[in-house]
Every structure is written in structure tokens, then in C-alpha cells.
């Protein structure tokens, strides 16, 4: 049995991916009579909606708007008043106003394109500064406070203040948003949905239709990428499809073309920061007073969680005795920003990176030493929100990455290079991460699974987690294989469905395998215990004498060494009337959170990592390139090193894109103009680090009782790309006197890099 946990199993769909046989929703056979839907979007950022009319045209079956919603016109994931279709007001350019349902996709799109839209435009708030000035927020400001930062800043030997911004990020999942709703008896609807949150799809569909949850079944076999973009945003797409199916009585597919997807759906939150940091002559941080202002877009969506995670990650790896971080969730007339891998964490950790570089420049000290000096350790081991930093691996990942990266030698080499290279400059950046694992909202940290063992010994596995490429299905299957000690090929993962496992949480916050792995373990182990009890009785042995190994079960009683295959035992259990099906359930222990006081233990544990990046910049054009990256990531004892390696590498390059080439651009009227891959530039193969050394930290089992002592890996490595941003600032600083700190807003496009260089040169 070589397919249990801690083995490098290939993605269970890999062969289907490469042969084109993996079915995505748009590839599923369409029943006769299937209709297609297209959205009518607002061309105006803010205003009063007077009229939406779609002229009659061939093939059009229905035109639906807010008045056609039998239930509540609200698709808010946590708040309320986020209409599926605008009623009397529009709040962003791209907001859905209506939907055309037609016999063909082209008929639907053509009719939608010809809609007459009358909106009385009103002034729009299109940036964070304007929203702050107008006190336009989607929720009250949140404050994370410890100690007395005001007094501490006054008494600090040194103080500095700074300001910078980071941009948003389009998810750019390769498979656009899609849902396919099939009506059944009595108003039942099965909706095939490309979502990370099938339960929310179920709830939103039911809310729109005004029916009980048990009428809606949400089914997800796989997503062509999610990254947070198919958490809340997939729900309204599915809701619209369900509405149309309910209205017409026909199967309806809604697939957003890329441009519509990019214009209508939310993205990563852009942030504006202002902070003051106090420190001593050695560079030790004494106090931080920071303002983090997020562009929430027009509605609440998942912004509370994003801002909370940004605030609880502002400290990152560093002990800050007196701490205040105030999070503003600014309401602008733009897409409603949403979950994106890291969920505010990446936007939180950049504050201290900026501050520590400035401190180092101010004091003429090595930025790496200043970082090391401020790490959490035995002296300061409690986060501003009151959680102890336990199982601290910062010293280990830091030492490992400096070693892997040959840091000291390359630092000297690059400094020497820069002295003799007037046009091209190189830079180095080092970055540590501490990332909290668990949903910030305690009740979400629960999961269910359903395992069947059939009488031939084959096993069917279902759980609440969705497969979006991250390898969740294979990892959880490995857990079940480990329990029964059978080959992975005996286990058939099956499509996530609200009919099989109810009341699930989204596959998000990196928790997929932590939660569903344990739930599946519990389900499998329940069956295994029944099989053991039966075998003991059947073979006249003690339960302790029944051993599962290598697809077999050994009855190891004294004087006998009978071995039956797992399949045989399954058959015997069936004949012996033993239930071979079980649910499993898991809830994360130890966590609690007071969201008002912002205190508690929101995270079951922390994941640690570190990265070193080397970049080159062209001081004439501002073009940059990542020459090398060395990553060390803590994965606990990895459930699947092959899958986890893919997560680390992919997350890093995605984070690199956020900080460098991926720029969202709105025109003065608030219309997004980067609406496809021709204008919005995610990294290509040449942009990944030319030398890319990635390893998982050895011998680091999780100190908490996670599934087989593994750790979550989906998000933390995305933050490691901050090393690239640090390196770019280092390279830019080399164009100046070396003593002046650099402001580099993200994304660090060639234009921003050139502007930073020009500013430094005065």
C-alpha cells in the first residue's frame, strides 16, 4: 500500500486533464430544450435606473429583471441588500440589470447587447481617498489595539511615517463563471455550479426563489480555477441560472464571457496605508499606529472577513508591543471586492515590510537584521489579538531560506554588480510569513463527509470540499486509503453535492484538507471500527488482533495468521448485516473569537514560510524581471508533497503577478477597461522566477492535532511573493544614495518602477 498519506500522489484527474476528458460544466451534455442566458449590465457607475428594455428578437424566451424574482432579490453572502438585479439604483459599471434567456447563446447575447438602458448618472466615488473623505464605508471601521501606541510613539527614540498603496487583482480563473440549472419535480432544482461554496449556492438560489433549502441541490465536480473568485461570486451566477430555470421550466445555462466576468464580478481588495512606527536605535519596533483602508467596492460581500484578516496579519512575523491597526472598508462605485487567495492577509503583511525597510534605511542597518531582531520569540510571543504564537518556526524557515539562497555571498555580489552597472540594477528581498489557519468566524470551521464501502470492497468518498485544481480530492482520498490501508485506486472521489453532505463551509481559507480530511477520516474510521468488530466476532479473535495492511486484513490471534482481502471482509460484513456507510464530522478545536473586541484565538495554528527573491530592473524603462526565488514553506508533515509543491509554486507566481504586472485600470467614468487577457496581464511562463528553488520545511509535524500532522498550504505561499516587492525596492534604492527608502506602490509595473526611480533621483 503505497498510496496513503505523505506520498506524492498525482492529481486524480491528471490523465483526464491532459486528454481533454475532464468534464467542466460547459462540457456536460445539454438536455433537449436547454436555454442559454446572458446578462444586461449597467454601463454607468452610479445613478438612478429609469429603464431597462430588451427589444423582442428571434429566439428570446424570457427577459428577467428584479420584478421577476419570486423570493428576495438579495444575493449577499453575509450582509443584506445586495440585489441580483438592480432595482431603482445602480452602484457600479458592470452591475447586472437584467437577464435574457434564449434558445441559443448567440440569441441571448445579441438581445442583451441591444438592451435599451436609461440611467440618470450621479457622481461616483471611484477611489479610496474620496471614500475616506466622504466617510463612505460598507461597515464601521474596525480597530485592533494592544497597549498604548500613542504614548509609546511619543516616547520612542525614532519615529517615521509613510503611505503607500497596493492594487486589486482579478482572479482570472481560466474557466469563467458558469452555472447550469435543471428544473425537476415540484420546483426542485439541481444546479451544476462552478463554486467553492455549494451550500451558499443552495441558500442563495432558495432565497431568490423563496423556497426551502431542500428544494435546491448544488453539485460541483470540479472548477477550472477558483482562487476565492468563486466563493460568493459563483452564488449569484448560480442563482440567476436557477431563477431562469424556475421561470421557464427548462434547463438554463449561464456562462459569463470573459469580459462580462471581469466587469461584473469582484476582485482582490486594493488598499491604501498610512502608518507611523516607533523604534529604537537598534531597529527594534516599539509601536505601530496604522490605517489600512480597503476598497470594498459597492457592497459588503465578504469585506468584513478580508479587513479582519488584514488587521490580524499586519503584525505578520513581528512582535509589536504597542499596536493599533484601524481597518476602513471604503464604499466605492466599483465591483464589490471579494475573497482572493490570502483574503486580506497579503494586504496586511506588507505594512511591516514597508516599515522595516524604512527603519533599516533610516538607521543605516541591514534590513534582514532588522527583521530578525523583531521576530516573535519567547520574549514577545503574543499577537495583538491575544493569540500566542505557538510552534514558532520563524527562526527555522529564516535560517533555511538564507542558507538555500546563499544570501550573504549574493548580497555582496549584487552590491558589487550595482556599483558597476549604471542602467541595470539588481535587488534582493527576503520575507518571512506567519499565516493564521482557520476561518476567522469560528462556526465556519466545521466539515462533513460521507463514505460508502460497497460489498466488492470499492469505496466511494464524498465530502463538503470542492476540487478546484488544488488536489483536495486526492488528498482526502489518501486519508481514507490510509484508514483502510487500501490502494488509492479503490477509492472513488465523487462530486461535491449539498444532497450528500449538507451545511458545508466554503472550500476557502486554506482549510480544505484540514477540515474535510478529518471528516473523511472520522467517516472511514467509523466503518473500519464496525468491520473490526465484525471480524473479531466472525473469526473468534480479539478486536486488537484485527490488522488492516496492504489491501488485506490479518487476523493475528495466537496460533493463527489468517489473512483475508479487504474486499472479502467487505463482502462478509455485508452478509453479516453490518452497515458499511458512515458520515463523518469534524469541528476545529480550541478556536474562539470576539469580533467586536478583536481578541481571541481565531486560528487553530500558524503556518510559516520564508522567501528570498532576486530581481533585475531596467532604470531606463522600469521593466523588471525575477531572476531567482528561493522558498521554504512549512507544510507540517505534508499529506501529499507533489500536490503541496504545486500549491507553493503556483501561489507564489500568482502573488508575484499581483505585485508586478497585474494592473486593473478604470477610466474616469469608473468603467473597468482591463477586461481580458489582452489588457490584463497575469504572469506567463517566462515571468516565473528563472531560478526557482522551492522546498518544504523538513521534519516539522504540526504541533496541533491536524489530520496526520499536516498543515494547510493554499494561501500562505502566495504571501511569499512579497519578497519580490522587497527586492524591487532594494533594486530601486540602488539607483539612489542607498540611504533613502523607496515608496513603491503595487502593482510594480514598469511605469511605477520608473516613477520610483525618478523620484529617488529627485
Amino acid at each position, binding site marked *: 500500500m503505497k498510496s496513503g498519506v505523505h506520498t506524492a500522489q498525482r492529481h486524480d*484527474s491528471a490523465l483526464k486533464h*491532459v486528454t481533454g476528458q475532464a468534464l467542466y460544466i*460547459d462540457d456536460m451534455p445539454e438536455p433537449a430544450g436547454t436555454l442559454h442566458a446572458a446578462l444586461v449590465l449597467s454601463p454607468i457607475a452610479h445613478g438612478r435606473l429609469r429603464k431597462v428594455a430588451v427589444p423582442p428578437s428571434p429566439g428570446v424566451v424570457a427577459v428577467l429583471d428584479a420584478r421577476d424574482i419570486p423570493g428576495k432579490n438579495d444575493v449577499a453572502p453575509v450582509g443584506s441588500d445586495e440585489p441580483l438585479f438592480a432595482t431603482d439604483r445602480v452602484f457600479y459599471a458592470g452591475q447586472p440589470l437584467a437577464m435574457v434567456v434564449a434558445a441559443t447563446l448567440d440569441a441571448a447575447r445579441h438581445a442583451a447587447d441591444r438592451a435599451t438602458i436609461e440611467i440618470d448618472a450621479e457622481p461616483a466615488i471611484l477611489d479610496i481617498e474620496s471614500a475616506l473623505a466622504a466617510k463612505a464605508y460598507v461597515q464601521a471601521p474596525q480597530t485592533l489595539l494592544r497597549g498604548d501606541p500613542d504614548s509609546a510613539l511619543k516616547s520612542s527614540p525614532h519615529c517615521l511615517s509613510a503611505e503607500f498603496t497596493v492594487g486589486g487583482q482579478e482572479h482570472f480563473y481560466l474557466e469563467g463563471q458558469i452555472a447550469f440549472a435543471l428544473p425537476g419535480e415540484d420546483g426542485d432544482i439541481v444546479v451544476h455550479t462552478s463554486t467553492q461554496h455549494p451550500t451558499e449556492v443552495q441558500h442563495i438560489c432558495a432565497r431568490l426563489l423563496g423556497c426551502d433549502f431542500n428544494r435546491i441541490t448544488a453539485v460541483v465536480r470540479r472548477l477550472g480555477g477558483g482562487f476565492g473568485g468563486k466563493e460568493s461570486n459563483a452564488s449569484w451566477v448560480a442563482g440567476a441560472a436557477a431563477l431562469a430555470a424556475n421561470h421557464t421550466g427548462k434547463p438554463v445555462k449561464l456562462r459569463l464571457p470573459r469580459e462580462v466576468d471581469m466587469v461584473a464580478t469582484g476582485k482582490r481588495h486594493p488598499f491604501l496605508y498610512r502608518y507611523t512606527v516607533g523604534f529604537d536605535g537598534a531597529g527594534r519596533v516599539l509601536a505601530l499606529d496604522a490605517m489600512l483602508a480597503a476598497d470594498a467596492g459597492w457592497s459588503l460581500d465578504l469585506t468584513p472577513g478580508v479587513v479582519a484578516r488584514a488587521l490580524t496579519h499586519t503584525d505578520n512575523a513581528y512582535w509589536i508591543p504597542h499596536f493599533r491597526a484601524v481597518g476602513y472598508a471604503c464604499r466605492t462605485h466599483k465591483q464589490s471586492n471579494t475573497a482572493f487567495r490570502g483574503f486580506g492577509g497579503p494586504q496586511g503583511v506588507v505594512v511591516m515590510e514597508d516599515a522595516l525597510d524604512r527603519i533599516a534605511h533610516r538607521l543605516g542597518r541591514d534590513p534582514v537584521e532588522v527583521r530578525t531582531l523583531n521576530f516573535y520569540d519567547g520574549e514577545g510571543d503574543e499577537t495583538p489579538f491575544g493569540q500566542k504564537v505557538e510552534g514558532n518556526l520563524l527562526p527555522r524557515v529564516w535560517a533555511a531560506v538564507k542558507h538555500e539562497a546563499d544570501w550573504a555571498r549574493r548580497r555582496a555580489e549584487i552590491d558589487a554588480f550595482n556599483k558597476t552597472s549604471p542602467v541595470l540594477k*539588481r535587488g534582493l528581498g527576503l520575507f518571512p510569513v506567519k499565516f493564521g489557519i482557520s476561518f476567522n468566524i469560528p462556526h465556519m470551521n466545521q466539515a462533513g463527509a460521507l463514505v460508502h464501502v460497497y460489498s466488492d470492497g470499492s469505496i466511494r468518498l464524498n465530502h463538503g470540499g470542492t476540487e478546484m485544481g488544488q488536489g483536495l480530492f486526492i488528498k482526502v482520498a489518501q486519508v481514507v486509503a490510509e484508514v483502510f490501508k487500501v490502494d488509492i485506486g479503490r477509492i472513488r472521489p465523487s462530486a461535491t453535492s449539498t444532497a450528500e453532505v449538507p451545511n458545508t463551509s466554503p472550500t476557502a481559507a486554506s482549510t480544505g484538507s484540514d477540515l474535510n480530511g478529518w471528516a473523511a477520516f472520522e467517516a472511514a474510521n467509523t466503518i473500519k471500527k464496525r468491520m473490526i468488530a465484525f471480524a473479531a466476532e466472525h473469526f473468534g479473535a480479539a478486536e486488537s488482533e484485527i490488522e488492516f495492511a496492504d489491501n488485506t486484513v490479518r487476523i493475528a490471534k495466537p496460533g493463527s495468521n489468517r489473512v483475508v482481502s479487504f474486499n472479502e471482509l467487505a463482502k462478509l460484513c455485508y452478509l453479516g448485516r453490518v452497515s458499511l456507510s458512515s458520515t463523518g464530522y469534524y469541528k476545529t478545536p480550541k478556536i474562539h473569537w470576539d469580533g467586536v473586541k478583536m481578541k481571541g484565538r481565531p486560528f487553530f495554528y500558524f503556518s510559516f514560510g520564508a522567501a528570498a527573491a532576486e530581481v533585475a530592473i531596467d532604470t531606463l*524603462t522600469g521593466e523588471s524581471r525575477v531572476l531567482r526565488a528561493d522558498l521554504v514553506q512549512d507544510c507540517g508533515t505534508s499529506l501529499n508533497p507533489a500536490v503541496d509543491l504545486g500549491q507553493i509554486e503556483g501561489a507564489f507566481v500568482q502573488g508575484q503577478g499581483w505585485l508586478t504586472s497585474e494592473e486593473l485600470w478604470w477610466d474616469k467614468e469608473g468603467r473597468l477597461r482591463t477586461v481580458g487577457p489582452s489588457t490584463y496581464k497575469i504572469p*506567463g511562463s517566462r515571468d516565473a522566477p528563472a531560478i526557482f528553488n522551492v522546498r518544504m520545511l523538513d521534519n516539522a509535524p504540526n504541533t496541533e492535532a491536524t489530520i496526520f500532522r499536516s498543515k494547510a498550504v493554499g494561501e500562505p505561499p502566495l504571501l511569499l511573493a512579497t519578497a519580490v516587492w522587497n527586492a524591487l525596492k532594494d533594486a530601486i534604492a540602488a539607483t539612489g544614495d542607498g540611504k533613502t527608502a523607496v515608496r513603491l506602490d503595487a502593482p510594480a*509595473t514598469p511605469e511605477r518602477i*520608473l516613477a520610483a526611480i525618478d523620484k529617488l533621483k529627485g
Partner: protein
Amino acid sequence: MFSRMADTIRFTLNGQPVDVGGLSPMTTLLDWLRDHRGLKGTKEGCAEGDCGACTVVLERADGQHEAMNSCIAMLGQMDGQSIRTIEGLLGKDGTPHPVQRVFAESDATQCGFCTPGFVMTAYAFAAGGEPPALETIHDALAGNLCRCTGYRPIVDAMKKMTGFATEPAAPPAARTASPAFDGTFFAPRSLDELVALRARYPEALLLAGGTDLGLLASRSRTPPPAAIHVSHVPELNVVHAGDRHLTFGAAVSYACAWPILVEAFPALRTYLARLGSRQIRTMGTIGGNLGNASPIGDMPPVLLALDGKVALVSRRGAREVPLDRFFVGYRETALAADEVIQSFTLPRLRAGESFHCDKVSKRRDQDISAVAGAYRIRIENGRIEDARLAFGGMAATPKRASHAEAALLKDGFDAARAALAQDFQPLDDWRGTAAYRLRVAANLLRRLELRLAEPRRPVEVEAL
């Protein structure tokens, strides 16, 4: 001259002949594969030829295998071609092709949606027998986007893409008469037919590779009422590399022109590799890049710097227009309503001349230029005696910087940089602000100065 109005579109799909009638010839190949043929392995990721999820392989009669985007290719363009899709890589018994196996075994898939496109790109790469060096691998992958893997395992898989058997091309027999599919899609076989059609259907779009016009069918879903597909006109497929001049027919693809252009102007090697992607260069033509007269097309600055000339033809006769008089306004050319571009001609470099070019964009590969610059410099006795400085992205048309050229000859590079503000008043957009464009254009002249002074010293980050 045309055979009959009920012509069907004939091509080879995965080794089997197909004959398509009763559909608009402006239907995209991707839509036809998925919706009419039931081949769902090829995916739509963007419908604008940029993400590569829809990549299929064009099997040329000469044995070349070229990746292309099926999303922006119209069915009418496929007539006479041989196409292979992801489904056509499986063995007869359903076993995966070695290219597919290597891809899976390299852990090069996560969500899998982009994967069929990558596999087809890898198949074309393997078939081409190129050495699997990093440079060629990245060139090959520039037209495919993956959001999950970070590319390392994909690049590793590409390193193993050698020595695989590929299927031979089996295009249908060449037509003897010119087809007119659906009465709206004309595919003339001679220059006479072409100019006659142009005169008769002034509202029809001239279609070559379709890498621009294909978006009308694909992304905008509003295909033109009629199209004249110029790719089968022999006179437009001429490639002539003479001692003093190079001549290319307007329908010659970038892929086909590449080796000759790069041999004559080595600086184009990197520049062309950054122009679109292999998928785009398989279909796209320089003639199309001139004809659509985009201010951000990458080839016009090159042709302007090289004093290129464009040969125009109509029933009234032929004429030759220097490139710098061809672009007359935003997306406007000197072409008369009844004229077509037949070819363009470039003089080779003469003694003392050198050619250089630059492209600045947010992403290195497959991006549209914020600024593109192309320069031809003649140096005699250590002195610059003549200069052509041409830029894209700086004005409503691709344009020579005539003030800067004059200043360079008279007072040197500093003066040339300063004079750029007289030549250009660029615009702000998502690719860059006006101020950045002007600043970069000036800095590119600094880069040129450095190149001329120290040709071996790297002046680009890509050289590190």
C-alpha cells in the same frame, strides 16, 4: 470564376475528412468543434486569442505543425487545412499520446482547464523537433496562460518533449476553383479574382490570418456581413529574399516570414518573439498588421524605420506607397476602397547601417506595446550620417520621429531625446500614461546610444 454558391468547407480533422455546409463560414472553429462536433476537450478561456485554452494544431502540407487559436479562427479559413485537436492525440485504442502522458506525469496540471491548450502547444513543439532549451520553451509557451501551477512543472514537461512520433498532415486536395461559402465568404485563388471581388464588395472585410478580425466573430459575436479571404492568392504568398530587398506577400504569416526577417535583421529575433504568440504568428500576417493600421501594431515601426514600401493593387492598376505615407490617420490608410495590399518590400541593410528595435510592455511576452521603437542608423567614420527613428504607441498612427531624427543628425542624442516632445503627444490608457510613454521613448533613445557605444554590454533585464 467561382465554382458555385453552395460550396462546402472541406478540411481534415484529426486525420478524417470533414465537409461542412449549412453553417455560417464565420462560425469560429472553436464553436464548431464544441457545439457542432461535440468535441469538448478544446476550451474557451477568453475568446480573444490570448489565453491559449483553445489551442489546436495546424498540420501544414510541408510537415510543419503549428499551434493556433481556434477561438478566433473562422471556419471558412479552415478550408483546405488539416487540424488536430486534443481528442486527436489519443491512440486508436484510447491510450494517451506520449505528450499527454509526460504532461500528466510532470504534475503539470492542477485545475486542468488550460491543459488541453498547453498539450497542443507541446505537441506542436515536439513535432517541430526544436531543442528543448529554456528560450525556445518560453517562446512556445507564450500563448498559453496557466493560473494554477506557476509554470515550473509545465516547463519541466516541455523539456521532455522530444522524439515523439506525430501524425502526418493529410489536407484535402487543393481546389481548382475558388469557393464562395454561403455567398458571404470568398476565397479567391488569383489576384485578378481578388481585385474584382474587392471592387464588387467594398463592404466586405479583407481577411488574412484573422487574428484581429476573428475577434468580431469570437468575442463580439458580430461577424462581418462578408469577407474576402486573401490567404489562397498566390501573389499574396510570395516570399522573395533578394540581394538588396526582401519582399513578402501580404498573406505571408509571421511564422513563415520569421526566418528571413531574422536573418536580415537579427534584432528582430527577440522583437518578433514578443509579437503575439506562436498561435498568433501561425495565422497573423504583416499585411494584416499594416492593413488594420493600429497605432500599437508592432510591425509598422519596423517597416517605417527600414523605409519599407507597400505595393497596392486594384483593377485600375498597381502602385507603390512608402510606409510613411501609408498611415494617414487613426486606423486609416492610403488604401482606396477598391485596393488591396499585395506585398511589402524592405531594403536590406547597407554598409554602415544597423537596425535596432525595442518593445516596452507590462508583461514580457504576448502583450501589446506601451511603446515600441525601431531605429535604423547609418554610421560613417564614427559619425551618425543618417537615422530613422519610428515609434508605435506614441500617436494616432505608427510614426517616424522626424524632429528627433533631424536633431540626432545635427546635435546628437540629447537633442534627439528633447525633440521627441515635438514629434509626439501620446495618450493615457491602461498601457501607460502619456508622460510615461514620452519618458520611455526618450530613454529608449538612451538605450540606443548605449547599444551603439558598447554593443556587447547588456542593456535589457532579459540579458541577465
